[in-house]
């Protein structure tokens, strides 16, 4: 049986088989076994068959064969022959797809000349138009591809054809008429885009436009399993490109688009606005000048009466685009466009502050930002009006409204002309900034506005202040002197103005200073700093706390890196003189706080700053001396734990950033520095030591925290650990010192043990005589030590935990201290500001998972078996662990946790436990509600019980509020049918919470109840 017969046989049964046959023929053709002429002859009979299907298959066979034939096998003459043959077959109405495939195959095997291309095109149009006659998408698609290829590779030929044959274009356009398939449409759009952009389309513009605009707006939703992954967006984008491609479309495009703008569908409106913007950008100034005003007249409504924010944005883009395009052309049209806009906006400003005066401001801001030319026109026409309106305005509100507009315009101005640090979009040309001629008036209005307005005119003054900041940042606008005036006004407000309301003004003023410092650091240093310093006494003889606000403000300036060093320096000097003139501890603490605050703001900067060593010398060392000194130079304040903590933290920040070597040196002296004594008897923790040396514990802990783990300590760590353990047990230690020593223990264990040594690090404590895990010896001091030690270890998620945790868990049933131990669990994973990565601690990414896996399942297990009087201990421990556990870790186990969690809501007096339990329940509701579904009844009743205040055993406000927040989630997250039965009951009971004595609880109750009221009986929508 011949190949072709075989092929026809398989065609319907098995496409791949068929293709295989075609391939076979192709090889035979290549090897010369089969001659082309022969093949055509064989086909002949089928091409003449009565049955259209057969003819189609025959052509498909030929096309496939050709596609398989390698390059260069077919001579030019053969190709031409085939080409003519296939073309001739296009007369056969039964299929164009295969013909097109065949031609494509031929084209791939050798370029065509102009005239052939033109013939092909013409023949296609003659024989196969309109394409829609072929019902199969698979028939039309190849044809479209063919045309697309021709368009792509033979532009000149087709362009020539178009120019030579008057009626060509109409026929060409009509050819694609009525295409519906998205994949084909993508093709059609890109085909038509060529004539649109490259040919002179003259009379056919409208047809061409309609050919694509018929599809506007695209409403197609891609089928879920669309193999070609064509999205509505793809189509929208291509369509938009087409619409925007030729200025000749303008007369049809704009009316049609604006007409569709009245649509009620947000999507349509969005498409329209985007299409308008695109067209405006493409059509060019000459065309746009004809439509700019029409466009303005319709686009403005989207902004003046906002229906939908992002539509307003789109409209604004459109208006701006018009301005952009027009500024490319002659100035006439631009003025013509801006005139009505300015006029209308000016009118709206007359009754500011209204929705529309705000919109008008928005419009001008959007347009003015376009170019220097535009903004200058706008300014020239708007600012004078604004200023007169301002002068004649009768109410504060109106003046505010006007200034808001003004400020927006200045902001646009900064965008265009740039600020002191960066050039704006218009490039370096601040010299011709139209704002210059209004500079002085603006400055005067805003300054006096801020200065003279009554203190309760908050919003008004805020606007003035904002305006001043904009002015001060405008590139090349104000002289340093003028900026100075602003700075002065600001710091006067900060320092001298009486506090009012929420102090928004003071806050804005100080932040303003920071902003200005970013633009003009030196001016701020020169003008503001002396003023601040003048307010800071060297000593505070009079007990006035006035300096506090000043210090706060001044410290904030450290946020701006350009003045950071100066801020630190001035603070340090102030501190030194304050100490030497032994000022009150309150004042010294304040100064230290300010310094610490400033340093934390600049911490990142310290890292790479070369100054950091000098900081060490100038700040840390003297602080050490003062701390350790015993003579008269020792300030009283330095015996106070809070002060020492501040000192410690200041040192910590600075030391942290020191080089490894330098740190090493510091490490050597870490204890001696403070005790002044020789290295021999370190560490200096001795029960015998005098109390004030105890205090140095706080500082040394902070320094230890700042060291890299490579730094070597002056004494061997086993000793250090057991000594710290001994030390921490002393009953007379104050809470801060005890905490410091315990945290030092955690730090040492976490940082300075090798992974291997870590396994045995507790042995000194576990073994006799200490026997820390001996149940008989258990007491609170030892419990603290256990947890402190474990904290250091668990952060490194060391395997040894597997042997240590069991001891801990066993203590939960301890008759005397079970509950105490239980409470300890909340400390395990509690974040600690010393045990951090910045402090070079070793923190394994998985330490939480590790502890969770080792603790939680065992706790829940033990809980089930525990005796009634112990059960609560396990609940407490559990919530302690969960409290700090990211929920994604809890998620896996949560199914088993729900019951215990719910039961811990019944505990009496364990409020922190309840809080933790509730917060876990909240996350559970958010992340994995299905596990709560079955407990709906019990969670609802328990939360209700905890959210309503009752005299005896009532939960405290925080718990009540939390319970209410959680209860609010229940209807949100659980299935309607599981919560509906409780609706009325919950709503009724919650009225009690509405009368809670605490505002925050009532607040939560209100939100919760209104959520529950929304839970509705189904099928209630009659009417």
């Amino acid at each position: 049986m011949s190949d072709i017969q075989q092929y026809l046989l398989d065609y319907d049964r098995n496409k791949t088989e068929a293709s295989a046959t075609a391939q076979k023929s192709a090889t035979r053709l290549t090897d010369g076994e089969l001659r082309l002429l022969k093949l055509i002859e064989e086909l002949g009979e089928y091409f003449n068959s009565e049955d259209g299907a057969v003819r189609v298959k025959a052509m498909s066979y030929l096309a496939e064969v050709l596609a398989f034939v390698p390059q260069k096998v077919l001579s030019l003459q053969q190709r031409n022959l085939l080409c003519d043959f296939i073309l001739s077959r296009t007369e056969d109405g039964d299929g164009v797809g295969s013909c097109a495939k065949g031609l494509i195959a031929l084209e791939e095997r050798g370029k065509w000349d102009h005239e052939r291309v033109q013939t092909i095109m013409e023949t296609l149009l003659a024989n196969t138009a309109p394409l829609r006659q072929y019902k199969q998408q698979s028939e039309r698609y190849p044809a479209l591809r063919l045309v697309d290829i021709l368009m792509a590779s033979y532009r000149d030929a087709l362009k020539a054809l178009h120019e030579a044959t008057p009626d060509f274009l109409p026929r060409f356009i009509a050819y694609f008429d009525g295409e519906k398939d998205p994949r084909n449409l993508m093709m059609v759009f890109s085909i038509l885009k060529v004539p649109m952009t490259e040919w002179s389309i003259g009379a056919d513009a409208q047809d061409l436009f309609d050919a694509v605009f018929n599809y506007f707006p695209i409403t197609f939703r891609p089928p879920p399993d669309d193999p070609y992954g064509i999205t509505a967006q793809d189509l929208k984008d291509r369509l938009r490109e087409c619409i925007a491609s030729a200025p000749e479309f303008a007369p049809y495009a704009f009316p049609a688009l604006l007409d569709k703008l009245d649509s009620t569908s947000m999507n349509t409106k969005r498409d329209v606005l985007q299409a308008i913007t695109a067209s405006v950008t493409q059509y060019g100034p000459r065309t746009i000048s004809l439509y700019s005003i029409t466009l303005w007249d319709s686009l403005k409504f989207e902004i003046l009466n906002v229906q939908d924010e992002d539509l307003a944005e789109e409209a604004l883009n459109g208006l701006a685009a018009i301005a952009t395009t027009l500024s490319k052309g002659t100035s006439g049209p631009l003025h013509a466009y801006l005139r009505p806009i300015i006029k209308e906006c000016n009118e709206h400003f007359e009754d500011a502050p209204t929705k529309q005066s705000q919109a008008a401001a928005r419009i001008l801001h959007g347009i003015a930002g376009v170019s220097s030319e535009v903004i200058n026109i706008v300014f020239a026409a708007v600012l004078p009006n604004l200023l007169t309106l301002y002068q004649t305005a009768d109410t504060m509100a109106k003046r505010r409204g006007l200034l808001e507009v003004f400020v927006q315009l200045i902001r646009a101005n900064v965008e265009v002309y740039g600020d002191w640090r960066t050039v704006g979009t218009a490039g370096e040309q601040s010299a011709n900034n139209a704002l210059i001629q209004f500079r002085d008036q603006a400055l005067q209005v805003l300054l006096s506005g801020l200065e003279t307005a009554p203190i309760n005119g908050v919003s008004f003054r805020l606007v003035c202040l904002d305006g001043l900041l904009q002015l001060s940042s405008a590139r090349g606008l104000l002289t340093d002197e003028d900026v100075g005036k602003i700075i002065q006004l600001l710091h006067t407000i900060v320092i001298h103005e009486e506090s009012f309301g929420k102090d928004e003004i003071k806050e804005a003023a100080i932040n303003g200073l920071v902003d200005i410092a970013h633009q003009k650091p030196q001016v701020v240093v020169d003008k503001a700093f002396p003023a601040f310093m003048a307010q800071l006494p060297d000593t505070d003889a009079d007990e006035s706390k006035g300096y506090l606000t000043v210090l706060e403000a001044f410290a904030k300036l450290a946020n701006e890196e350009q003045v950071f060093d100066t801020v630190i320096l001035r603070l340090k000097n102030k501190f030194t003189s304050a100490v030497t003139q032994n000022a009150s501890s309150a004042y010294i603490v304040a100064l230290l706080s300010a310094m610490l605050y400033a340093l934390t703001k600049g911490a990142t900067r310290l890292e790479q700053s070369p100054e950091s060593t000098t900081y060490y010398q100038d700040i840390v060392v003297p602080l050490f001396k003062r701390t350790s000194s015993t003579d008269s130079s020792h300030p009283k304040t330095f015996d106070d734990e809070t002060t020492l903590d501040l000192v410690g933290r200041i040192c910590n920040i600075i030391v942290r950033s020191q080089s490894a070597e330098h740190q090493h040196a510091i490490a050597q002296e870490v204890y001696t520095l403070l005790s002044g004594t020789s290295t021999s008897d370190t560490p200096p923790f001795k029960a015998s030591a005098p109390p004030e040396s105890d205090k140095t514990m706080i500082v040394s802990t902070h320094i230890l925290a700042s060291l890299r783990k490579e730094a070597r300590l002056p004494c061997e760590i086993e000793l250090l650990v057991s000594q710290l353990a001994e030390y921490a047990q002393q009953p007379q230690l104050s809470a801060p010192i005890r905490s410091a020593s315990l945290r030092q223990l955690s730090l040492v264990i976490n940082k300075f043990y090798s992974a291997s040594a870590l396994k045995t690090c507790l042995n000194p404590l576990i073994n006799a005589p200490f026997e820390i895990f001996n149940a008989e010896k258990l007491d609170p001091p030892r419990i603290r030590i256990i947890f402190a030690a474990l904290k250091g270890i668990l952060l490194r998620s060391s395997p040894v935990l597997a042997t240590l945790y069991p001891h801990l868990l066993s203590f939960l049933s301890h008759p005397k201290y079970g509950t105490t131990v239980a409470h300890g669990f909340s400390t395990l994973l509690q974040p600690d500001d010393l045990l951090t990565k910045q402090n070079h601690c070793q923190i394994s990414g998985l330490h939480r998972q590790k502890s969770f896996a080792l603790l939680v399942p065992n706790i829940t297990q033990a809980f089930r078996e525990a005796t009634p009087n112990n059960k609560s201990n396990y609940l407490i421990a559990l919530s302690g662990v969960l409290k700090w556990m990211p929920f994604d870790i809890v998620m896996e186990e949560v199914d088993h946790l729900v019951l215990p969690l719910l039961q811990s809501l019944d505990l009496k007096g364990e409020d922190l436990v309840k809080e933790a339990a509730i917060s876990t329940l909240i996350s559970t509701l958010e992340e994995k509600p299905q596990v709560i579904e079955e407990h709906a009844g019990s969670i609802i009743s328990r939360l209700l019980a905890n959210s309503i205040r009752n005299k005896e055993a009532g939960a405290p406000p925080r718990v009540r509020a939390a319970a209410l927040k959680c209860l609010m989630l229940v209807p949100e997250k659980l299935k309607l049918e599981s919560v509906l039965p409780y609706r009325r009951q919950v709503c009724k009971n919650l009225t009690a919470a509405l009368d809670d004595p605490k505002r925050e609880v009532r607040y939560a109750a209100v939100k919760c109840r209104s959520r529950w009221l929304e839970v509705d009986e189904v099928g209630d929508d009659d009417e």
Partner: protein
Amino acid sequence: MDPNKDNANPTILNPSDLPSRRRESTVKRRNDGASGLFDDLIPRYNYLNDPFEQSELSSDSEDGEFEHIDEQEVYDLISSISDPEHPLSLGSLAVVNLPDIRIQPPTSPFSSISTVVVEITPTITHCSLATVIGLGVRVRLEQALPPRFRVDVRIKKGTHSTDEAVNKQLGDKERVAAALENATLMGVLRKMLSTCE
């Protein structure tokens, strides 16, 4: 202008000028005039909640004082309701104003029933939505205030052409109850109340 709105261009107040307790709570006034910027330099928990003393210091219970429901609180409850025709809050449109809210204590020692009187100011005198707005306010308060409060919502005298009629409707418990069972109307109200915190 948009014809299907009664007042397409209302005057808008600036949030900074609206009284509110909510935002205040973030900044607490201190006797020394400082804003407390430095307070958190030393994280609290390090010393303050040593879990081992918890059992004693737990149930930190009512830190005394009873924060009574006052006009400001009522204002906060209703000022965030949004206007049915603008995406703006009744507060910023000055439809509800703090001075127009009065809480009347019980009329007799034998009664614990207080009355909240709210006078609303429609954006313009013929605003057809006055009733809906009033209803929104009344519903919000009935949902958010404890039952010991009677809620009287009225149109401020002389600010509306048909204020008497509207007031009578808003005062009619039975009509309000029926309105709340009307799905369509409820839809509108939900939308208005959806912006309430």
